[in-house]
């Protein structure tokens, strides 16, 4: 974990990433691999005409898996709220989501639990786990996160909000910092920027006046850190520290994770493999082999198993029913208050 070049206003002590125990490494790796294989399956589905659009997170697994493992999963203010973006499948898997559900959303079948065939791939929603619906409009989650965080000022849970680098140019990113850092009314919110140095086709260089996006938090007295999001151990350590800080101090933290965009922006840009980007899964595999936690053969076996499982699942999903035309008119107004049920 490297801190940003300029000093933080409230320095966080960030030690070199500790080696995680072999067991934890294996757990993380397994989820990273499952997430990667899931994204590959989704892309294949798109390319085979089993979905209209793909967007997702190949290249963010090393960061998103630890996030999913470290949050306090559950329902209501005493658990963590997650305002994720559209590259968060690995976080969902780490929290225990069934990858088949992502295929269902890709194929927009009626059984898609996240949106009933209404929304694009990657637009998750799990009320049982406080995962609020992923929005297509960039950055609005940072304004909405203020609200869940406010509801948690005296609760055990915290709010986590995540988005990309380019999106921080929207006013909502500033809004989140302004509201989260009001003196005497600070909010327990972990703001995450997953910086892949692109917004669609537009490179980071030329659009940003600061060295690191997280520098913007400093004037607000917000804790900041920049980490190598391609390193699962660094990510795990940084997230653990940041989450603990937010939970204990009830104050905001702004964490910037440098990540890769391995398949370009989305299916709109082809979803093909991008050269010159670090592949966190491959890199972690090397580390695990080096540490003799796994062998190449074991890795290959796992990958094959997961790939086959999802290929089978995709076949099954293909047979599931599409939403009926009439179903477009369902869920316009709620009859009862679901969110308040047992809060």
């Amino acid at each position: 974990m490297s801190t940003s070049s300029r000093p933080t206003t409230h320095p966080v002590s960030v030690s070199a990433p500790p080696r995680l125990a072999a067991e934890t490494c294996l757990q993380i790796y397994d989820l990273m691999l499952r997430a990667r294989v899931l994204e590959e399956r989704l892309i294949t589905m798109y390319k085979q005409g089993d979905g209209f659009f793909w967007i997702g997170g190949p290249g963010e697994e090393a960061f998103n898996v630890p996030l999913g493992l470290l949050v306090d999963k559950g329902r209501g203010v005493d658990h963590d709220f997650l305002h994720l973006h559209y590259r968060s499948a690995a976080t969902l898997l780490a929290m225990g989501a069934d990858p088949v559900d992502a295929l269902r959303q890709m194929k927009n079948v009626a059984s898609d639990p996240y949106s009933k065939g209404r929304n694009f791939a990657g637009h998750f929603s799990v009320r049982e786990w406080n995962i609020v619906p992923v929005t297509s409009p960039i950055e609005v989650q940072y304004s909405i996160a203020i609200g869940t965080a406010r509801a948690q000022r005296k609760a055990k849970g915290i709010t986590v909000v995540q988005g990309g680098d380019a999106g921080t140019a929207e006013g909502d990113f500033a809004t989140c910092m302004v509201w989260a850092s009001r003196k005497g009314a600070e909010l327990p919110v972990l703001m995450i920027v997953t910086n892949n140095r692109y917004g669609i086709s537009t490179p980071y260089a030329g659009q940003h006046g600061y060295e690191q996006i997280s520098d913007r938090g400093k004037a607000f007295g917000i804790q900041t850190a920049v980490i190598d999001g391609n390193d699962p151990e660094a990510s795990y350590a940084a997230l653990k520290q940041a989450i603990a800080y937010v939970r204990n101090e009830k104050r905001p933290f702004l964490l910037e994770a440098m990540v890769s965009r391995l398949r370009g922006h989305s299916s709109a840009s082809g979803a093909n493999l991008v050269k010159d980007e670090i592949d966190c899964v491959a890199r972690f595999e090397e580390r695990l082999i080096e540490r003799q936690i796994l062998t190449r053969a074991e890795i290959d076996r796992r990958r094959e198993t997961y790939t086959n499982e999802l290929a089978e699942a995709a076949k099954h999903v293909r047979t599931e029913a599409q939403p009926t035309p009439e179903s477009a008119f369902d869920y316009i107004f709620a009859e009862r208050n679901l969110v308040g049920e047992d809060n």
Partner: protein
Amino acid sequence: MATMIQAIRLALHVGETRLGVTDIFGEDVGAPLGGVFTGTQGLETAWNTPLDERGIVGTAIGLALAGQRPVAEIQFCDYAFNTIDLLKLAGNTYWSSGGDWNVPMVLMTPVGAGIRGSIYHSHSFDATATRIPGWKIVMPSNPRDAYGLMLSAIVDPNPVMFLMPKALLRLKGKPSDLLPGEPEDDKQLASMIDAPLGDRSAWKPRWPDVQELYIPIGESRIARPGSRVTVLTYGRNVPMAVAAADELAAEGIDTEVLDLRSLHPYDWPAIAASVRKTNRVLCVNEDTEVTNFGEHLIRRIVEELFYELHAPPRLVAGAHLPGIGLADALEMASVPQKDGIKTAIRELAAHEP
């Protein structure tokens, strides 16, 4: 008799003490001011936000998703136009998530002309609001409805927009419309719940023991019964239309004024019944006239009740202008006035098919 703004304050008091409202917030909503129209004076859970409408709406959505019942205010609806994307999100979250998350928030905001508010304190919001699916939209024309609609808004599991006709906020209700539990003497009420001028740091309201009264969202009210012409209106234009109708009664024109109260969902059965009775209909509202909610009502009436109509339906609405000017003559020329309403009713009444 409570004024409309007092009635709203009383409803919010019931909300925060009995209906689970945890946060009432917006610019200058907390102490010391208690809202630029005094709507939130003395409330326990009222607080001042940063000057940031996007943050206000975002916070409301977030609080609602966390299972609370927030009431947020945009100080003037004129300043809500940078939040339409967030309002759309609040309105589509239940649908987009396939019924996973509802968003039980209330957004209140003063609307309309009539206080010489010039370009940015005179906007209407009804046409824009009705274009945001997933919201319920209400707009009272008197204190009692304001009270009862606010309570319904608070307990509704969906986002509800509460449009406050600013020209009516300081008008008192009719003696027959006393809120349940409200002291009969309005001076007494004021002394109990209106903050004093000057230093307020030691002031605390003494709340009367008001009781719940729910005006169902979606139900209109016949503000004045009549047989010859139907006027469909809401908010500030209701008393205006009633006054117009009362004056026209002397000319032998018997006008029915329907106060919609809810713009979405609106009370189609009552509208249809009135049009079937009078065969002549006028829609009145203050919003600009191109792509106006009254035009929706007229379209639906024409589509479903064409052969009931003895005259072409009419719309009296705000002029399609970039703003409402400060000078009296400009404002009067820009939004409906009683005389224009009377002329339109007269023409409708005189029209023979």
